[in-house]
């Protein structure tokens, strides 16, 4: 008794075949190009496929005008300016009152002047026309959703690139593109048109995103965990851009909504805050897992901390009342990393967190009315715990004693004795930190060029050593130490 797989899903079979073909091509290596056989088969272009449309004026509107007026009025100034003749920006400004949109809205994507015009006019039917054309074209030509399209990846890639450039120009995403992403991300293999898809993700509108978890987070997470480190970093960069675009939009529109009802402002604001918080927690989660998978790779940490560089400044820079600390699975690998770049980045981020928290407390105290949003005491506690660990690692050598975070550095004396490190109570600070040891060595070489014993304990007085470090370009370290560490002793 044999059972067969139901063969009703064509796309799966086609996708497997395509992947098999791609793997075969990769494994066979370079093959000598034989004349004629190496040409890719150009598929017969469908008549209804419209990836690139040249802008041309409508011709049927003249029918309506003739019917109404009876004859063409040669002296009237209501003759519209033909779109094909629009070449320069001054021309656009001169003719803006009599310019008509082209007969096919899809042509505006490759025409910056028409994009300007579309932005000014704010016509519902214009957006709807563009919406229908773009959503149909994206669905029809998608190379991973439609079995026959896998040969035409280059063309689709160019099309996605065009859509992305138009979004960057308008500083806003297209809703048809967003819907396309929700439908196609669950089917995406992470390979086809990778950089274009991730770039388009960054223009998703967070403020109206109700199903972020199922439509964006789940499909991305699936691909994220099973992919290379470069893909992981690309996703993190894309999510950072997504966050930034939404924050910039919020900041820009906050000014224009200043006069509107306070109530509606608060509801949309709380909606945005919730979605942004969900996104940040999602990134925190995947970053923690990714760091374990990639063994705390410095390359990966750079992108993760880059994301948190945006997160830490949300209150002061973008006026969004939200502060979320990085999870322990990100903070501790960064604190204990072997790389000074990472440590420097972390110091800068913690400095900005402090600045934001201090400003928030100030605003709380000074304002008479009760603010709807204020940072919870839990946030302050999290921050304080991290600071204790950081100061312990960099300054007071007391990280192992003072840090009581469940995923932190607290360790028993017994365990520390087993490490065999002499004077362990004073041997983990800015001089001895593995990320900073390189600087200590260079310092000793410069100060005592003949001494080859590299006695780190010579670096006692902190002031001039810190000046030395700051001169090496460790700006983050500088601002962190100057803000968070009260220097009691003024050593020489």
């Amino acid at each position, binding site marked *: 008794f044999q059972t067969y797989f139901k*063969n009703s899903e064509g796309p799966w079979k086609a996708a497997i075949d395509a992947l098999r073909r791609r793997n075969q091509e990769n494994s066979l290596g370079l093959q000598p190009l034989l004349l004629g056989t190496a040409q890719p088969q150009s598929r017969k272009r469908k*008549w209804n496929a419209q990836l690139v449309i040249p802008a*041309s004026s409508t011709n049927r509107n003249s029918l309506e005008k003739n019917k109404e007026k009876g004859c063409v009025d040669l002296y009237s100034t209501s003759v519209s300016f033909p779109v094909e003749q629009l070449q320069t920006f001054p021309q656009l400004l001169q003719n803006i009152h009599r310019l008509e949109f082209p007969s*096919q809205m899809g042509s505006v994507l490759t025409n910056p002047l028409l994009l300007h015009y579309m932005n000014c006019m704010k016509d519902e*039917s214009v957006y709807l026309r563009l919406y*229908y054309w773009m959503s*149909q074209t994206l*669905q029809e030509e998608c190379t991973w959703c439609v079995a026959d399209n896998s040969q035409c990846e280059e063309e689709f890639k160019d099309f996605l690139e065009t859509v992305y450039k138009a979004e960057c120009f308008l500083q806003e995403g297209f809703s048809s593109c967003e819907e396309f992403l929700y439908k196609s991300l669950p089917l995406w293999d992470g390979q086809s048109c990778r950089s274009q898809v991730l770039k388009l993700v960054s223009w998703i509108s967070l403020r109206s995103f109700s199903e972020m978890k199922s439509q964006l987070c789940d499909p991305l997470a699936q691909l994220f965990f099973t992919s290379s480190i470069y893909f992981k970093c690309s996703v993190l960069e894309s999510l950072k851009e997504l966050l930034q675009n939404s924050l910039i939009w919020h900041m820009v529109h906050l000014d224009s909504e200043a006069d509107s009802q306070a109530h509606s402002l608060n509801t949309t604001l709380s909606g945005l805050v919730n979605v942004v918080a969900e996104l940040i927690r999602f990134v925190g989660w995947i970053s923690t897992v990714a760091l374990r998978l990639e063994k705390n790779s410095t390359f990966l940490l750079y992108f993760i901390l880059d994301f948190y560089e945006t997160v830490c400044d949300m209150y002061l820079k973008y006026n969004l009342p939200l502060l979320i600390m990085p999870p322990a699975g990100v903070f501790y690998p960064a604190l204990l990393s072997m790389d000074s770049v990472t440590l420097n980045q972390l110091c800068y981020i913690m400095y900005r967190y402090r600045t934001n928290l201090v400003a928030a407390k100030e605003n709380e105290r000074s304002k008479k009315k009760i603010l709807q949003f204020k940072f919870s005491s839990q946030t302050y506690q999290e921050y304080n715990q991290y600071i204790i660990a950081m100061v312990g690692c960099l300054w007071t050598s007391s990280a192992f004693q003072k840090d009581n975070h469940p995923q932190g550095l607290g360790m028993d004396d017994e365990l520390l004795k087993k490490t065999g490190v002499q004077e362990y109570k004073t041997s983990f600070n800015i001089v001895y930190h593995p990320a900073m040891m390189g600087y200590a060595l260079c310092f000793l070489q410069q100060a005592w060029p003949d001494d080859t014993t590299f006695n780190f304990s010579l670096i006692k007085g902190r002031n001039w050593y810190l000046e030395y470090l700051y001169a090496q370009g460790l700006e983050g370290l500088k601002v962190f130490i100057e803000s968070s560490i009260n220097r009691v002793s003024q050593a020489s």
Partner: protein
Amino acid sequence: ESQRTAFLLCKQWTLYSVTPLYKFSSALLKDYAKLLSASIAAEKQKGLAVEVGVELDIKAVISILPDLRHSDRDQAAILVQLSTRSSFSKKNSAEKLIWSGWFCCVSEDDLSENLLEDFTCLPLFLANGAETYTSIVGSWFQKTFDCCFRRLTISPLNLSWMAAMWTGCKVDKTTSATELVFSVSCLPYPLDISYAIHTEDAKALWDTVQKTPGEITQEEVDIFMDCLYSHFHRHFKIHLSTMRLVKVSTAIASAHCDGSVKFLQSQYLTGVLMLLTELALSQIQ
């Protein structure tokens, strides 16, 4: 009434979904026809003529088909016909119809209420004739009314629904049998299995499955298909359920998964169109 739509029957129609047409007016059909004829003549000059040899003038006629709608709220169907007239003999030569296509919208819901004023919703397009003419006419509509045509394919799931629904329709003369065609793909050569059942037997089976008249559930369709599969297996030891259903032919209509239909009974025409309109709308949404 059925006389006016009789010419739609027994022809193979290729299905497309169409996004709403912008600034389309049913009052200007004659002008549209003129523009379309001019556009076709221009394409012919470019060298896209189908007929070789005799110089043929192609004339386009666009008209309304008033009967194909569910209610008065539906947009009236629009018919486009291309016919040739030999340019040698002028008046008395017979016009030969070479291509026809029609837009329609048969739906229970009022689709126009959500749509802006300037848009006309005619989501289903059916074409019969050479592909080159379909492409010329379709391209003209795309350029003029900023719409998008997409081939409407029918999934095996929808085909099985059609098989169940159409089998349940009462017909007077049962000349044709109900036929299901399956494609077997795991073989190196293409193989189709055709499974034909007497219409009365199929209807009797469906009547035992369907619980509420006028309502059909997915479960009932599955039971119906399973019965047919197990009957076939009993005789031929082949599991049809593992194969791909590609074509369904019943007494009232036939449909192929490539996206083509044939209407065989005018009394059920609107019913079938309603189903196809729904499929077209799901492809546009």
